[in-house]
Protein backbone atom coordinates (compact mmCIF):
# COMPACT_ATOMS: atom_id res chain seq x y z
CA UNK A 1 0.00 0.00 0.00
CA UNK A 2 1.06 3.55 -0.66
CA UNK A 3 -0.02 6.95 0.40
CA UNK A 4 -0.20 9.60 -2.28
CA UNK A 5 0.12 13.08 -0.95
CA UNK A 6 -0.65 15.86 -3.39
CA UNK A 7 -0.26 19.57 -2.73
CA UNK A 8 -2.50 21.38 -5.21
CA UNK A 9 -4.17 24.70 -5.89
CA UNK A 10 -7.32 24.93 -3.78
CA UNK A 11 -9.70 25.64 -6.63
CA UNK A 12 -8.60 22.42 -8.32
CA UNK A 13 -9.87 20.25 -5.48
CA UNK A 14 -13.28 19.55 -6.98
CA UNK A 15 -11.83 18.52 -10.35
CA UNK A 16 -9.33 16.22 -8.76
CA UNK A 17 -11.92 14.71 -6.43
CA UNK A 18 -14.24 13.96 -9.35
CA UNK A 19 -11.43 12.43 -11.35
CA UNK A 20 -10.32 10.22 -8.51
CA UNK A 21 -13.86 9.11 -7.91
CA UNK A 22 -14.16 8.12 -11.57
CA UNK A 23 -11.05 6.05 -11.10
CA UNK A 24 -12.83 4.13 -8.37
CA UNK A 25 -11.17 5.77 -5.39
CA UNK A 26 -13.59 5.59 -2.49
CA UNK A 27 -12.03 7.90 0.03
CA UNK A 28 -9.51 10.60 0.67
CA UNK A 29 -8.55 13.14 3.30
CA UNK A 30 -8.04 16.81 2.61
CA UNK A 31 -6.19 19.47 4.60
CA UNK A 32 -5.86 23.19 4.11
CA UNK A 33 -2.16 24.07 4.14
CA UNK A 34 0.11 26.97 3.30
CA UNK A 35 2.74 26.45 0.67
CA UNK A 36 6.09 28.05 0.15
CA UNK A 37 7.80 27.59 -3.17
CA UNK A 38 8.71 29.08 -6.49
CA UNK A 39 5.29 30.66 -6.74
CA UNK A 40 5.78 33.88 -4.87
CA UNK A 41 3.17 35.03 -2.40
CA UNK A 42 1.79 38.52 -2.56
CA UNK A 43 2.15 42.00 -1.20
CA UNK A 44 -0.11 43.30 1.52
CA UNK A 45 -0.38 46.83 2.80
CA UNK A 46 -1.16 47.69 6.38
CA UNK A 47 -1.35 51.34 7.32
CA UNK A 48 1.13 52.34 4.70
CA UNK A 49 3.63 49.59 5.46
CA UNK A 50 4.10 46.83 2.90
CA UNK A 51 4.39 43.20 3.83
CA UNK A 52 5.55 40.38 1.64
CA UNK A 53 3.48 37.27 2.33
CA UNK A 54 5.52 34.25 1.28
CA UNK A 55 2.93 31.58 1.88
CA UNK A 56 0.24 30.70 -0.59
CA UNK A 57 -2.94 28.81 0.35
CA UNK A 58 -2.75 25.23 -0.90
CA UNK A 59 -4.78 22.08 -0.45
CA UNK A 60 -3.25 18.79 0.52
CA UNK A 61 -4.94 15.59 -0.61
CA UNK A 62 -4.00 12.28 1.00
CA UNK A 63 -5.13 8.98 -0.51
CA UNK A 64 -4.04 5.58 0.61
CA UNK A 65 -4.26 3.01 -2.15
CA UNK A 66 -2.88 -0.36 -3.09
CA UNK A 67 0.48 -0.34 -4.76
CA UNK A 68 -0.78 -1.22 -8.25
CA UNK A 69 -2.92 1.88 -8.48
CA UNK A 70 -0.09 4.30 -7.80
CA UNK A 71 0.72 5.13 -11.39
CA UNK A 72 -2.93 5.75 -12.29
CA UNK A 73 -3.65 7.87 -9.31
CA UNK A 74 -0.54 9.98 -9.76
CA UNK A 75 -1.38 10.48 -13.42
CA UNK A 76 -4.99 11.42 -12.77
CA UNK A 77 -4.12 13.87 -10.03
CA UNK A 78 -1.39 15.50 -12.01
CA UNK A 79 -3.61 15.82 -15.08
CA UNK A 80 -6.49 17.39 -13.20
CA UNK A 81 -4.48 19.61 -10.92
CA UNK A 82 -2.39 21.08 -13.71
CA UNK A 83 -2.93 24.61 -14.92
CA UNK A 84 0.53 24.86 -16.42
CA UNK A 85 1.34 27.82 -14.26
CA UNK A 86 3.83 28.01 -11.47
CA UNK A 87 2.54 26.74 -8.13
CA UNK A 88 0.58 23.78 -9.45
CA UNK A 89 2.13 21.73 -6.69
CA UNK A 90 3.71 18.37 -6.00
CA UNK A 91 2.81 14.75 -5.64
CA UNK A 92 4.71 12.54 -3.19
CA UNK A 93 4.44 8.79 -2.71
CA UNK A 94 5.01 7.14 0.67
CA UNK A 95 5.09 3.55 1.81
CA UNK A 96 2.26 2.42 4.07
CA UNK A 97 2.67 -0.61 6.27
CA UNK A 98 -0.82 -1.15 7.45
CA UNK A 99 -4.34 0.17 7.02
CA UNK A 100 -7.41 -0.42 9.13
CA UNK A 101 -11.06 0.56 8.89
CA UNK A 102 -12.09 1.53 12.39
CA UNK A 103 -15.75 0.67 11.99
CA UNK A 104 -15.24 -2.94 10.89
CA UNK A 105 -11.67 -3.74 11.78
CA UNK A 106 -11.00 -4.73 8.15
CA UNK A 107 -7.39 -4.23 7.23
CA UNK A 108 -5.14 -3.96 4.20
CA UNK A 109 -6.80 -3.21 0.87
CA UNK A 110 -10.20 -3.89 2.33
CA UNK A 111 -9.81 -0.96 4.65
CA UNK A 112 -10.32 1.70 2.00
Amino acid sequence: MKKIEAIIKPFKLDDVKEALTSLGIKGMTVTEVKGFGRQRGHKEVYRGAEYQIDFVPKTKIEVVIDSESVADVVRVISEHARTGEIGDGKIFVFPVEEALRIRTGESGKDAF
Partner: protein
Amino acid sequence: MSCLHDVQIKKIGEGTMNTGDTAFILVSAALVMLMTPGLALFYAGMVRSKNVLGTIMQSFILIGFISLEWILWGYSMAFGPDKLGMIGGLEWFGLNGVGLEPHTVYATTIPHQLFMIYQCMFAVITPALITGAFAERMRFGPFLVFSLLWATFVYNPLAHWIWGGGWLSSLGALDFAGGVAVHLSSGVAALACALILGKRRGYQTEELKPHNLPMTLLGAGILWFGWFGFNAGSALAAGSLAGSAFVATHMAGTTGALAWIAIEWRMSGKATTLGAASGAIAGLATVTPAAGFVGPISASIIGLIAGCACYLGIMAKNKFRYDDSLDVVGIHGVGGVVGLLAVGVLASKAINSNGANGLFFGNPGQLGIQCIAIAATIVYTFVITFVLLKIVNKLLGLRVPEHEEISGLDLSQHDETAYTS
Protein backbone atom coordinates in the same frame (compact mmCIF):
# COMPACT_ATOMS: atom_id res chain seq x y z
CA MET B 1 -41.57 63.05 1.33
CA SER B 2 -44.79 62.25 -0.33
CA CYS B 3 -46.97 64.57 -2.21
CA LEU B 4 -44.89 67.60 -1.89
CA HIS B 5 -47.21 69.61 -3.99
CA ASP B 6 -50.16 69.14 -1.72
CA VAL B 7 -47.98 69.94 1.17
CA GLN B 8 -46.69 72.94 -0.66
CA ILE B 9 -50.08 74.54 -0.84
CA LYS B 10 -50.69 74.06 2.83
CA LYS B 11 -47.37 74.83 4.30
CA ILE B 12 -45.85 77.61 2.25
CA GLY B 13 -44.95 80.41 4.49
CA GLU B 14 -44.98 78.42 7.68
CA GLY B 15 -41.41 77.40 8.19
CA THR B 16 -41.24 77.44 11.96
CA MET B 17 -38.74 75.04 13.36
CA ASN B 18 -39.97 72.29 15.62
CA THR B 19 -37.50 70.69 18.00
CA GLY B 20 -39.32 67.36 18.08
CA ASP B 21 -39.36 67.09 14.30
CA THR B 22 -35.75 68.21 14.11
CA ALA B 23 -34.69 65.70 16.75
CA PHE B 24 -36.44 62.96 14.84
CA ILE B 25 -34.89 63.79 11.48
CA LEU B 26 -31.43 64.23 12.98
CA VAL B 27 -31.70 60.71 14.34
CA SER B 28 -33.35 59.38 11.21
CA ALA B 29 -30.51 60.71 9.09
CA ALA B 30 -28.06 58.91 11.36
CA LEU B 31 -30.12 55.73 11.09
CA VAL B 32 -30.18 55.85 7.31
CA MET B 33 -26.42 56.49 7.26
CA LEU B 34 -25.96 53.33 9.33
CA MET B 35 -27.83 51.33 6.74
CA THR B 36 -24.93 51.54 4.31
CA PRO B 37 -22.44 49.86 6.68
CA GLY B 38 -25.29 47.46 7.50
CA LEU B 39 -25.68 46.70 3.82
CA ALA B 40 -21.94 46.24 3.53
CA LEU B 41 -22.12 43.46 6.10
CA PHE B 42 -25.30 41.99 4.67
CA TYR B 43 -23.59 41.64 1.32
CA ALA B 44 -20.12 40.78 2.58
CA GLY B 45 -21.36 37.79 4.54
CA MET B 46 -22.67 36.31 1.31
CA VAL B 47 -19.46 36.44 -0.69
CA ARG B 48 -16.45 34.17 -0.39
CA SER B 49 -13.86 35.16 2.17
CA LYS B 50 -11.42 36.35 -0.47
CA ASN B 51 -13.89 39.06 -1.51
CA VAL B 52 -15.22 40.27 1.80
CA LEU B 53 -13.22 43.49 2.02
CA GLY B 54 -13.78 44.34 -1.61
CA THR B 55 -17.50 43.93 -1.03
CA ILE B 56 -17.56 46.00 2.15
CA MET B 57 -15.51 48.67 0.44
CA GLN B 58 -17.94 49.02 -2.44
CA SER B 59 -20.57 50.16 0.03
CA PHE B 60 -18.39 51.95 2.54
CA ILE B 61 -16.58 54.19 0.11
CA LEU B 62 -19.83 55.35 -1.43
CA ILE B 63 -20.70 57.02 1.86
CA GLY B 64 -17.79 59.29 1.12
CA PHE B 65 -17.97 59.43 -2.61
CA ILE B 66 -21.66 60.06 -3.12
CA SER B 67 -21.98 62.42 -0.16
CA LEU B 68 -19.43 64.66 -1.81
CA GLU B 69 -21.26 64.43 -5.14
CA TRP B 70 -24.48 65.22 -3.30
CA ILE B 71 -23.37 68.47 -1.70
CA LEU B 72 -21.65 69.57 -4.89
CA TRP B 73 -24.33 68.94 -7.52
CA GLY B 74 -26.50 66.00 -6.53
CA TYR B 75 -28.83 67.78 -4.15
CA SER B 76 -29.26 70.61 -6.56
CA MET B 77 -30.07 68.27 -9.46
CA ALA B 78 -32.58 66.36 -7.39
CA PHE B 79 -34.23 69.02 -5.27
CA GLY B 80 -33.12 72.31 -6.78
CA PRO B 81 -35.37 74.61 -8.82
CA ASP B 82 -37.35 72.49 -11.23
CA LYS B 83 -36.59 72.62 -14.96
CA LEU B 84 -39.52 71.40 -17.05
CA GLY B 85 -40.35 68.67 -14.58
CA MET B 86 -37.22 66.79 -15.62
CA ILE B 87 -34.37 67.91 -13.40
CA GLY B 88 -33.38 70.42 -10.75
CA GLY B 89 -31.16 73.29 -11.81
CA LEU B 90 -27.62 73.78 -10.60
CA GLU B 91 -28.55 76.93 -8.70
CA TRP B 92 -27.82 75.10 -5.45
CA PHE B 93 -24.40 73.84 -6.54
CA GLY B 94 -22.18 73.42 -3.51
CA LEU B 95 -25.21 73.97 -1.25
CA ASN B 96 -25.37 77.55 -2.39
CA GLY B 97 -28.50 78.94 -0.74
CA VAL B 98 -29.18 75.75 1.20
CA GLY B 99 -29.19 77.18 4.69
CA LEU B 100 -30.23 76.43 8.21
CA GLU B 101 -33.72 77.91 7.91
CA PRO B 102 -36.47 75.48 6.99
CA HIS B 103 -37.27 75.33 3.31
CA THR B 104 -40.71 76.55 2.42
CA VAL B 105 -41.73 73.36 0.64
CA TYR B 106 -39.56 70.50 1.74
CA ALA B 107 -39.78 69.64 5.42
CA THR B 108 -40.95 72.98 6.69
CA THR B 109 -40.19 72.46 10.36
CA ILE B 110 -36.54 71.43 10.26
CA PRO B 111 -33.36 73.10 8.97
CA HIS B 112 -33.08 72.94 5.21
CA GLN B 113 -29.56 71.53 5.49
CA LEU B 114 -30.89 68.75 7.65
CA PHE B 115 -33.40 67.81 4.96
CA MET B 116 -30.51 67.90 2.49
CA ILE B 117 -28.29 65.58 4.54
CA TYR B 118 -31.17 63.24 5.28
CA GLN B 119 -31.72 62.93 1.53
CA CYS B 120 -27.99 62.46 1.10
CA MET B 121 -28.16 59.17 2.93
CA PHE B 122 -30.71 57.89 0.40
CA ALA B 123 -28.49 58.95 -2.46
CA VAL B 124 -25.62 57.02 -0.85
CA ILE B 125 -27.33 53.72 -0.24
CA THR B 126 -28.95 53.43 -3.65
CA PRO B 127 -25.81 52.81 -5.71
CA ALA B 128 -24.54 50.69 -2.83
CA LEU B 129 -27.53 48.41 -3.31
CA ILE B 130 -26.49 47.83 -6.92
CA THR B 131 -23.10 46.48 -5.90
CA GLY B 132 -24.70 43.17 -5.00
CA ALA B 133 -25.24 42.50 -8.68
CA PHE B 134 -21.58 42.63 -9.67
CA ALA B 135 -20.12 41.29 -6.44
CA GLU B 136 -16.81 39.44 -6.58
CA ARG B 137 -15.72 40.62 -10.02
CA MET B 138 -15.63 44.37 -10.58
CA ARG B 139 -12.52 46.52 -10.65
CA PHE B 140 -12.45 49.16 -7.95
CA GLY B 141 -11.56 52.24 -10.00
CA PRO B 142 -14.14 51.70 -12.74
CA PHE B 143 -16.67 50.88 -10.03
CA LEU B 144 -16.15 54.33 -8.56
CA VAL B 145 -16.51 56.00 -11.93
CA PHE B 146 -19.65 54.06 -12.74
CA SER B 147 -21.21 54.84 -9.38
CA LEU B 148 -20.56 58.53 -9.74
CA LEU B 149 -22.06 58.62 -13.21
CA TRP B 150 -25.02 56.54 -12.13
CA ALA B 151 -25.75 58.75 -9.14
CA THR B 152 -25.57 61.79 -11.36
CA PHE B 153 -27.48 60.60 -14.37
CA VAL B 154 -29.90 58.09 -12.93
CA TYR B 155 -30.48 58.73 -9.23
CA ASN B 156 -30.63 62.51 -9.35
CA PRO B 157 -33.18 62.76 -12.16
CA LEU B 158 -35.37 60.01 -10.71
CA ALA B 159 -35.32 61.62 -7.28
CA HIS B 160 -36.29 64.88 -8.93
CA TRP B 161 -39.16 63.32 -10.86
CA ILE B 162 -40.78 61.85 -7.80
CA TRP B 163 -39.70 64.04 -4.87
CA GLY B 164 -38.22 67.20 -6.26
CA GLY B 165 -41.33 68.55 -7.94
CA GLY B 166 -40.77 66.70 -11.20
CA TRP B 167 -43.26 65.24 -13.64
CA LEU B 168 -44.00 62.03 -11.75
CA SER B 169 -45.09 63.91 -8.68
CA SER B 170 -47.10 66.33 -10.83
CA LEU B 171 -48.82 63.33 -12.31
CA GLY B 172 -49.75 62.25 -8.81
CA ALA B 173 -47.50 59.23 -8.53
CA LEU B 174 -47.03 58.26 -4.91
CA ASP B 175 -43.77 56.99 -3.49
CA PHE B 176 -43.39 57.51 0.21
CA ALA B 177 -39.77 56.65 0.83
CA GLY B 178 -38.10 55.25 -2.22
CA GLY B 179 -39.85 52.79 -4.52
CA VAL B 180 -38.90 54.68 -7.66
CA ALA B 181 -35.52 56.22 -6.99
CA VAL B 182 -34.11 53.69 -4.54
CA HIS B 183 -35.41 50.16 -4.91
CA LEU B 184 -36.74 49.86 -8.42
CA SER B 185 -33.91 51.89 -9.87
CA SER B 186 -31.23 49.87 -8.11
CA GLY B 187 -32.95 46.61 -9.05
CA VAL B 188 -33.14 47.55 -12.70
CA ALA B 189 -29.58 48.84 -12.74
CA ALA B 190 -28.53 45.56 -11.15
CA LEU B 191 -30.00 43.64 -14.06
CA ALA B 192 -28.05 45.73 -16.53
CA CYS B 193 -24.89 45.16 -14.52
CA ALA B 194 -25.38 41.42 -14.29
CA LEU B 195 -25.94 41.21 -18.03
CA ILE B 196 -22.99 43.35 -19.01
CA LEU B 197 -20.44 42.08 -16.50
CA GLY B 198 -21.33 38.47 -17.13
CA LYS B 199 -21.16 35.57 -14.75
CA ARG B 200 -18.60 34.94 -12.09
CA ARG B 201 -16.07 32.21 -12.78
CA GLY B 202 -17.65 29.05 -11.48
CA TYR B 203 -21.22 30.32 -11.49
CA GLN B 204 -23.51 27.30 -11.38
CA THR B 205 -20.54 24.91 -11.49
CA GLU B 206 -18.69 25.68 -8.28
CA GLU B 207 -20.12 26.37 -4.86
CA LEU B 208 -20.24 30.13 -4.57
CA LYS B 209 -21.55 30.10 -1.05
CA PRO B 210 -21.78 32.71 1.71
CA HIS B 211 -18.63 32.68 3.81
CA ASN B 212 -20.16 34.11 6.97
CA LEU B 213 -23.92 34.04 7.41
CA PRO B 214 -23.88 35.51 10.93
CA MET B 215 -22.36 38.61 9.32
CA THR B 216 -25.26 38.70 6.89
CA LEU B 217 -27.77 38.34 9.70
CA LEU B 218 -26.09 41.15 11.61
CA GLY B 219 -26.32 43.26 8.48
CA ALA B 220 -30.00 42.42 8.16
CA GLY B 221 -30.62 43.45 11.76
CA ILE B 222 -28.86 46.76 11.23
CA LEU B 223 -30.77 47.35 8.01
CA TRP B 224 -34.09 46.69 9.70
CA PHE B 225 -33.16 49.10 12.49
CA GLY B 226 -32.09 51.78 10.03
CA TRP B 227 -35.19 51.30 7.93
CA PHE B 228 -37.25 52.96 10.64
CA GLY B 229 -35.26 56.10 9.92
CA PHE B 230 -35.70 55.54 6.20
CA ASN B 231 -39.47 55.10 6.18
CA ALA B 232 -40.79 56.72 9.34
CA GLY B 233 -38.28 59.51 8.87
CA SER B 234 -39.75 60.15 5.43
CA ALA B 235 -42.77 61.64 7.21
CA LEU B 236 -40.27 64.43 7.95
CA ALA B 237 -42.03 65.15 11.22
CA ALA B 238 -42.44 63.32 14.50
CA GLY B 239 -46.17 62.90 14.32
CA SER B 240 -48.80 60.33 13.62
CA LEU B 241 -47.72 59.82 10.02
CA ALA B 242 -44.29 58.80 11.23
CA GLY B 243 -45.91 56.44 13.72
CA SER B 244 -48.04 54.93 11.04
CA ALA B 245 -45.11 54.52 8.66
CA PHE B 246 -43.09 52.94 11.47
CA VAL B 247 -45.76 50.34 12.11
CA ALA B 248 -46.22 49.62 8.41
CA THR B 249 -42.48 49.19 7.97
CA HIS B 250 -42.13 46.81 10.86
CA MET B 251 -45.11 44.70 9.86
CA ALA B 252 -43.97 44.31 6.28
CA GLY B 253 -40.51 43.23 7.39
CA THR B 254 -42.17 40.79 9.68
CA THR B 255 -44.53 39.18 7.21
CA GLY B 256 -41.89 39.24 4.49
CA ALA B 257 -39.63 37.07 6.63
CA LEU B 258 -42.45 34.73 7.55
CA ALA B 259 -43.69 34.33 3.99
CA TRP B 260 -40.23 33.58 2.68
CA ILE B 261 -39.45 30.85 5.17
CA ALA B 262 -42.91 29.38 4.75
CA ILE B 263 -42.33 28.94 1.02
CA GLU B 264 -38.88 27.55 1.61
CA TRP B 265 -40.22 25.11 4.10
CA ARG B 266 -42.66 23.80 1.55
CA MET B 267 -40.21 23.79 -1.33
CA SER B 268 -37.07 22.35 0.19
CA GLY B 269 -38.21 21.06 3.55
CA LYS B 270 -36.28 23.54 5.67
CA ALA B 271 -36.50 27.19 6.63
CA THR B 272 -33.14 28.91 6.26
CA THR B 273 -31.81 31.84 8.25
CA LEU B 274 -30.73 33.52 5.04
CA GLY B 275 -34.31 33.08 3.90
CA ALA B 276 -35.61 34.83 6.99
CA ALA B 277 -33.19 37.69 6.45
CA SER B 278 -33.90 37.91 2.72
CA GLY B 279 -37.63 37.88 3.32
CA ALA B 280 -37.36 40.64 5.89
CA ILE B 281 -35.37 42.80 3.49
CA ALA B 282 -37.85 41.99 0.72
CA GLY B 283 -40.74 43.08 2.92
CA LEU B 284 -38.97 46.23 4.04
CA ALA B 285 -37.97 47.18 0.51
CA THR B 286 -41.41 46.54 -0.86
CA VAL B 287 -43.28 48.53 1.75
CA THR B 288 -40.94 51.49 1.29
CA PRO B 289 -43.04 53.35 -1.28
CA ALA B 290 -46.21 52.50 0.63
CA ALA B 291 -45.17 52.97 4.24
CA GLY B 292 -46.89 56.32 4.75
CA PHE B 293 -50.05 55.51 2.80
CA VAL B 294 -51.25 52.22 4.23
CA GLY B 295 -52.38 50.85 7.57
CA PRO B 296 -50.82 47.97 9.48
CA ILE B 297 -52.98 45.22 8.00
CA SER B 298 -52.36 46.41 4.46
CA ALA B 299 -48.66 46.61 5.27
CA SER B 300 -48.71 43.06 6.56
CA ILE B 301 -50.30 41.92 3.33
CA ILE B 302 -47.69 43.82 1.33
CA GLY B 303 -44.99 42.02 3.28
CA LEU B 304 -46.57 38.65 2.61
CA ILE B 305 -46.78 39.32 -1.11
CA ALA B 306 -43.25 40.68 -1.08
CA GLY B 307 -41.88 37.55 0.54
CA CYS B 308 -43.51 35.37 -2.09
CA ALA B 309 -42.82 37.60 -5.09
CA CYS B 310 -39.18 38.17 -4.26
CA TYR B 311 -38.62 34.48 -3.59
CA LEU B 312 -39.93 33.82 -7.09
CA GLY B 313 -37.79 36.69 -8.35
CA ILE B 314 -34.73 34.89 -7.12
CA MET B 315 -35.80 31.60 -8.58
CA ALA B 316 -36.12 33.41 -11.90
CA LYS B 317 -32.42 34.15 -11.78
CA ASN B 318 -31.56 30.50 -11.43
CA LYS B 319 -33.69 29.93 -14.48
CA PHE B 320 -32.56 32.74 -16.75
CA ARG B 321 -28.97 32.16 -15.65
CA TYR B 322 -27.76 35.70 -15.30
CA ASP B 323 -25.48 36.13 -12.34
CA ASP B 324 -27.11 38.80 -10.21
CA SER B 325 -24.80 37.63 -7.49
CA LEU B 326 -26.53 38.81 -4.34
CA ASP B 327 -30.04 39.08 -5.78
CA VAL B 328 -30.60 42.77 -6.17
CA VAL B 329 -33.01 42.25 -9.05
CA GLY B 330 -35.02 39.64 -7.23
CA ILE B 331 -35.34 41.66 -4.04
CA HIS B 332 -35.15 45.35 -4.86
CA GLY B 333 -36.35 45.22 -8.45
CA VAL B 334 -39.28 42.93 -7.81
CA GLY B 335 -39.92 44.59 -4.45
CA GLY B 336 -39.92 48.02 -6.04
CA VAL B 337 -42.52 47.03 -8.62
CA VAL B 338 -44.72 45.25 -6.11
CA GLY B 339 -44.49 48.11 -3.65
CA LEU B 340 -45.35 50.81 -6.16
CA LEU B 341 -48.30 48.75 -7.38
CA ALA B 342 -49.38 48.14 -3.80
CA VAL B 343 -49.64 51.88 -3.28
CA GLY B 344 -51.98 52.05 -6.24
CA VAL B 345 -54.15 49.39 -4.70
CA LEU B 346 -53.96 49.86 -0.93
CA ALA B 347 -53.26 53.57 -0.37
CA SER B 348 -55.84 55.24 1.81
CA LYS B 349 -56.49 58.89 2.53
CA ALA B 350 -57.59 57.80 5.97
CA ILE B 351 -53.95 57.10 6.74
CA ASN B 352 -52.43 60.05 4.93
CA SER B 353 -54.65 62.86 3.82
CA ASN B 354 -51.88 64.22 1.62
CA GLY B 355 -51.79 60.93 -0.25
CA ALA B 356 -54.52 59.41 -2.35
CA ASN B 357 -56.84 56.46 -2.33
CA GLY B 358 -55.90 53.34 -4.21
CA LEU B 359 -57.97 50.85 -6.16
CA PHE B 360 -59.43 49.17 -3.07
CA PHE B 361 -60.47 52.52 -1.75
CA GLY B 362 -62.35 53.47 -4.84
CA ASN B 363 -59.71 55.15 -6.96
CA PRO B 364 -58.55 52.85 -9.77
CA GLY B 365 -56.82 55.73 -11.52
CA GLN B 366 -54.04 55.73 -8.96
CA LEU B 367 -52.99 52.27 -10.07
CA GLY B 368 -52.61 53.55 -13.61
CA ILE B 369 -50.44 56.40 -12.43
CA GLN B 370 -48.29 54.01 -10.46
CA CYS B 371 -47.85 51.85 -13.55
CA ILE B 372 -46.61 54.85 -15.46
CA ALA B 373 -44.12 55.56 -12.70
CA ILE B 374 -42.92 51.98 -12.80
CA ALA B 375 -42.59 51.88 -16.55
CA ALA B 376 -40.77 55.20 -16.69
CA THR B 377 -38.37 54.17 -13.98
CA ILE B 378 -37.59 50.84 -15.59
CA VAL B 379 -37.03 52.18 -19.07
CA TYR B 380 -35.04 55.23 -18.06
CA THR B 381 -32.87 53.35 -15.58
CA PHE B 382 -32.14 50.42 -17.82
CA VAL B 383 -31.21 52.47 -20.84
CA ILE B 384 -29.01 54.96 -19.04
CA THR B 385 -27.35 52.32 -16.87
CA PHE B 386 -26.64 50.21 -19.92
CA VAL B 387 -25.06 53.10 -21.75
CA LEU B 388 -22.99 54.18 -18.76
CA LEU B 389 -21.68 50.67 -18.25
CA LYS B 390 -20.76 50.33 -21.89
CA ILE B 391 -18.86 53.58 -21.82
CA VAL B 392 -16.97 52.82 -18.62
CA ASN B 393 -16.22 49.33 -19.87
CA LYS B 394 -14.86 50.69 -23.11
CA LEU B 395 -12.72 53.31 -21.47
CA LEU B 396 -11.52 51.52 -18.35
CA GLY B 397 -12.64 47.90 -18.33
CA LEU B 398 -15.17 46.87 -15.70
CA ARG B 399 -14.12 43.38 -14.89
CA VAL B 400 -11.09 42.06 -13.07
CA PRO B 401 -8.84 39.73 -15.08
CA GLU B 402 -9.28 36.04 -14.37
CA HIS B 403 -6.28 35.55 -12.09
CA GLU B 404 -7.45 38.46 -9.97
CA GLU B 405 -10.90 36.96 -9.76
CA ILE B 406 -9.28 33.74 -8.55
CA SER B 407 -7.12 35.44 -5.97
CA GLY B 408 -10.08 37.61 -4.92
CA LEU B 409 -10.88 41.29 -4.73
CA ASP B 410 -9.31 41.80 -1.32
CA LEU B 411 -5.84 41.02 -2.55
CA SER B 412 -6.14 42.13 -6.11
CA GLN B 413 -7.95 45.44 -5.56
CA HIS B 414 -6.86 46.41 -2.08
CA ASP B 415 -3.67 44.53 -1.17
CA GLU B 416 -5.40 43.27 1.95
CA THR B 417 -6.52 40.04 3.57
CA ALA B 418 -9.68 40.05 5.65
CA TYR B 419 -8.84 37.34 8.15
CA THR B 420 -5.52 36.18 9.52
CA SER B 421 -4.59 34.72 12.87
